[in-house]
């Protein structure tokens, strides 16, 4: 367990000093500033329009940035065999996967929290509003990344190419926003064996639409504690399940 802690800690430290993260943060903040100008083009009150666009840019680009960072670092370690010095010290090689998994998730939470703070400050400076609800969003995004990163680690074990891992994981992330639509349409219209296959596919892939709560946050609609607990348990259960399986597969590999 201690080994997982150290791998996680130094993954965060390495990630924080990575150029990809800095450049991505800069790009996201530039897009948030651009959101302000977009908000001037619409009829709605500018703070609502600004939040809508900021949330979008924050979600899309933080997911992109951290996916690229995670995959590039993992494959670089593999290619340069830099992970040998870590793996040879581990009592269970799965700790490498689990430690990295925790590390990259902490890194993601730090990144989106920083950007959310920036959004909060802009709202305060421009419209003199203290919108604490903004800080709900990084928590929800982190839950989504928890699921996505678990999938990334599984794909890392399958593909030897970082490009394939990135494309596949982002494709799954995008497509899983439509899981429920897929379910409602296919399960209602399909018959026999295909119906059960669709149900299996639905549960195999995550349902990211559950986390699309921008409307609720922006318009102050209800976000009950029960909903929050269910979302949290959903993401934790799925994420741990997949990353646990990835760790087991990694530990049982014959050759590294």
């Amino acid at each position, binding site marked *: 367990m201690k080994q997982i802690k150290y791998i996680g800690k130094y993954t965060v430290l390495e990630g924080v000093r990575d150029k990809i993260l800095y450049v991505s943060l800069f790009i996201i903040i530039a897009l948030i500033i651009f959101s302000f100008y977009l908000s001037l083009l619409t009829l709605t009150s500018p703070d609502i329009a600004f939040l809508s666009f900021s949330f979008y840019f924050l979600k899309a680009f933080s997911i992109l940035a951290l996916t690229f960072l995670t995959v590039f670092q993992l494959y670089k370690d593999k290619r340069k065999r830099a992970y040998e010095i870590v793996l040879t010290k581990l009592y269970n090689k799965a700790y490498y996967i689990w430690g990295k998994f925790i590390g990259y998730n902490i890194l993601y939470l730090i990144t989106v929290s920083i950007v959310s703070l920036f959004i909060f400050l802009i709202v305060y400076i421009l419209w003199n509003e203290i919108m604490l609800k903004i800080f709900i969003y990084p928590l929800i995004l982190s839950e989504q990344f928890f699921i996505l990163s678990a999938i990334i680690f599984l794909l890392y074990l399958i593909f030897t190419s970082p490009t394939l891992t990135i494309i596949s994981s982002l494709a799954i992330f995008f497509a899983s*926003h439509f899981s429920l*639509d897929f379910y409602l349409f*296919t399960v209602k219209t399909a018959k026999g064996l295909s119906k059960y296959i669709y149900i299996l596919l639905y549960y195999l892939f995550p349902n990211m639409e559950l986390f699309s709560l921008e409307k609720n946050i922006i318009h102050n609609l209800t976000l009950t504690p*029960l909903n929050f607990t269910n979302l949290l348990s959903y993401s934790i259960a799925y994420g741990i399940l997949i990353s646990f399986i990835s760790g087991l597969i990694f530990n049982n590999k014959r050759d590294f």
Partner: protein
Amino acid sequence: MKTRKLSTIIIVFLLAILGFIYIKSEKALTNLYKEKEVEPLFLPISMLDVAFLKNRPAISEFYLISAIMHFVSENRDTEFIAKELYLGYKADPYIKETVFFLGNVLPIKKEDIEIANRYLRLAASYGIDWHIFLYMGYNFLFNLKEYEKAARFFYIASKLPGAKPYVQSMLIMAYYRKNDIRGALLYLTALYKETENPARKKLILKKIEWLQNIIELNEQVKLFYKKEGRYPKNLKEMVDKGYIQEIPKDPFGRGYYFDKKAKIVKSKW
């Protein structure tokens, strides 16, 4: 060997628990969605759903901005703009500015009003909101001058949750424009009984008095026509000839007059 078997069993058990938690939370979050016969949204509202990752407020804002840009451009296609606004409303019904634009800003020519109303009706069938019926009422009242229809829409709007009090004033105005003064009076009286707020009650009473004056004056105009065989030149003539004691005071201070064309007494609105 024994410890290995035991740890395998524990691992499988823990994985099963995680799987159970996963499915349980998924059901808790989506049951409502699945139970309702929700219209399958499999074909997304647009590719914007994909691009914006279902961030509905952002999609709505995007449509609104796009509609505004098209509106101010030279080759304006009202049908296209109306569709964009309707899709924007559908994406996020909490952003009312889409239907506001649809109902209040877009209709310039008569053809535009028909288009706007058609999309407002579509918007209403997607998600009922008092704003939609209010704007439809506006179009019928001010642009198309179909007062009966306007009154109907204002009535529906006034009954929907969240409707502001001024909607009821619009309803009364519709009745008035329809020359159905008695209808307006009946509605006002019912409203007076319903209202609890003393300030509002006072205002409604004023309106009732205002309308009652018009009704009474019109009754006297009918009597004048019956006896004199013609309509009066003005209200002063009716006072001189003794049909009315005096021109009643307009509680809103605007004053009454006889409209020779419409042949009825009106208020200087």
